[in-house]
């Protein structure tokens, strides 16, 4: 009996003790990658498609965990669980806070997991000279740049002159704040004939966005454009514009190319949709992890994935339509 038990134990030790050696021996440069986006939503779902496509092409295994809601308190326990697995070599993560996630990700690093951040970043996003330098790279389109591109798109749509207005969600949220900063910067520096007449916070309520925009249209009857810093803000603003009989005359920009945004574009509620490239982010991040594992040392610390501007004129062009956040099955 006891000899039998001993035999089992010994053979188990042999099997489990030798397995990793065997497997690392066989696939020397194929790391195992964890993917931890910010929250379940179309943007990250498309990013996951990129991750999976890239992983399939390279033959690496990816473990994906998606937090149900956005936030450090939700993301950290999942991160800790992924570290505790002990089998991950790389982690592709969209940190839900640029400061608070530094500690938890240093823990991952200490456990031998190298970090790549996608969409969002740690510290100030500068992994060369900034306060945080340990991640391999930050792959994403930053919000300030997105605000700049939105501003240029809107400026072009209104002919380079007139009054524009920003409707945003909440104060002190880095993403939408950055978009407004970039937007204001471009309008101030590149378009002297465009005046940004104000910014309101709708606190994530479409109803409030509509009310505020309706009031602004009363205040500024010659308003030429509105920048909605997210899809909801744009929909709220666009509803006010259409109800004021100004559909198609006051241009509305929506940030992020969700299918809802595209539906609004087709309905004429918004006139410009700014698409990020989450697929690119996910695809490149896996490539970077595999390259790093293979000993590539010249990976850029920052990759700007850029944007596409979608209008009613190009929305059916396959070259542009592929940037719409489309998740199969939903």
């Amino acid at each position, binding site marked *: 009996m006891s000899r039998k038990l001993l035999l089992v134990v010994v053979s188990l030790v042999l099997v489990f003790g030798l397995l990793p050696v065997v497997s690392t021996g066989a696939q020397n440069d194929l790391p195992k990658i964890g993917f931890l986006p910010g929250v379940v939503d179309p943007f990250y779902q498309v990013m996951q498609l990129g991750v999976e496509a890239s992983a399939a092409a390279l033959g690496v295994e990816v473990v994906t965990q998606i937090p149900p809601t956005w936030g450090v308190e939700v993301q950290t326990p999942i991160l800790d669980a992924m570290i505790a697995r002990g089998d991950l070599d790389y982690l592709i993560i969209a940190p839900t806070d640029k400061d608070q996630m530094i500690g938890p990700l240093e823990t991952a690093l200490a456990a031998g997991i190298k970090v790549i951040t996608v969409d969002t970043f740690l510290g100030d996003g500068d992994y060369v000279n900034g306060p945080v330098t340990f991640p391999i790279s930050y792959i994403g389109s930053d919000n300030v740049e997105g605000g700049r591109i939105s501003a240029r798109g809107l400026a072009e749509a209104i002919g380079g002159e007139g009054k524009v207005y920003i409707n945003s969600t909440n104060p002190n949220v880095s993403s939408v704040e950055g978009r407004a900063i970039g937007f204001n910067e471009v309008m101030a520096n590149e378009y002297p004939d465009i005046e940004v007449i104000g910014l309101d916070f709708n606190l994530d309520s*479409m109803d409030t966005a509509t009310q505020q925009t309706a009031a602004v249209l009363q205040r500024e009857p010659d308003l030429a454009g509105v920048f909605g810093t997210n899809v909801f803000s744009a929909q709220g603003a666009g509803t006010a514009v259409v109800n004021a009989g100004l559909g198609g005359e006051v241009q509305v920009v929506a940030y992020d190319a969700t299918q809802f945004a595209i539906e609004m574009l087709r309905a004429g509620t918004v006139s410009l949709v700014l698409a990020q490239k989450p697929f690119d982010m996910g695809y490149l991040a896996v490539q970077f992890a595999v390259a790093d594992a293979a000993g590539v040392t010249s990976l850029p610390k920052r990759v700007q994935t850029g944007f596409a501007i979608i209008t009613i004129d190009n929305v059916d062009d396959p070259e542009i339509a592929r940037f719409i956040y489309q998740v199969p099955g939903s």
Partner: protein
Amino acid sequence: MALGKQQAIEVGTTTSQRERRKQLVLLLSRVWAWVFLGILIVFFIVSVPIVSEGSVTFLTVRNSQNILVAITPVLLLGLGQTFVIIAGGIDLSVGWMMSLASVISALVIRETFNVGQPLLAAVIIGFVATVVGTGFVGFLNGTIIARLKVPAFIVTLGSSFIVRGVAFLLTDNTTVIGLPPGLRDYGNNALIYLIRGEGGGVYFLNSPDVTGDLLRNMDRVLPYPVVLTVIVVAIAMFLLKKTQFGRHTYAIGGNLEAALRAGIPVDRHIISLYMLSAVTAGIAGFLSTLRFTAGSAVIGDPLLLSSIAAVIIGGVSLFGGAGSVMGTVIGALLIAVLTTGLVMLNVLPFWQFIVVGVVVILAVLIDQARDLIIGRFESE
């Protein structure tokens, strides 16, 4: 003898003076919100043209309609809440309930329409599904509160999480889209169309087919969401003021023990109050689906605090037993007028928060001052 008569007369005079003063305080506390609203509107009527150097006026048909549309969700969330708070409870689930309703109505309308039903039928079925769905959750809320004696604060806080989870599950955290395009008309068209200026006129029910300047100068008077809300408010007002249901609501909030002893079916009544609260929040969600032609699992949550603020500004006592539907209407109007007016004044957006906060605290202070003064009158 003579002296005693003298005393009696003196006491009599002071009592009636006190009575008059008490009545005055009561009257003031009842109408202060009206007065404040009036002052606010006058303030904006005067200040908006000054700040804009004469180019903008606050008092326009369009602005009045914008404000009416803006109050509909806040008012509907606050409407059932008014009953619940008068009866001494609280319903913290109304915000997420509105979101759930938005999701349910969007899904039902889309699917009904997609199987070939006419749009109107789909909208009606969507409405019924919303009322039934939210009413069911309200029934659960009320049952746990009334029968199992769990504090309303806890139950509705808990159920708001559950409702939120269900709404996210139903939508997979995406916006419910693909709704019939004609739906937008139900949420944004109006009873009356007023076209100002040359070539203008008045049209009823159907939006006139105009473009350009005519379209720009067209005001939608009494949009459908406002009409539906007015109907719901009228029913609620009747219910609270004129029926046994209303009297029971006040009785339970005023003195639960007495209500029980008077033979009021307290448990059953409390359950129906939470159902009412859930359903009015549900109607708010239904209307937002029509307005924005989309269902969203996050649409209602930001409005929860505004709706409670509206109820409190309207003079509903958080300790139960006092309040009115009209008060809540005024409260919601106050907030909407403030938001619209401040945007038109172009002050920094943070002032919107500060002013609403000050008004809420002021409302409670006035409420307490009233109780204090009346209490002093009565103890003397």
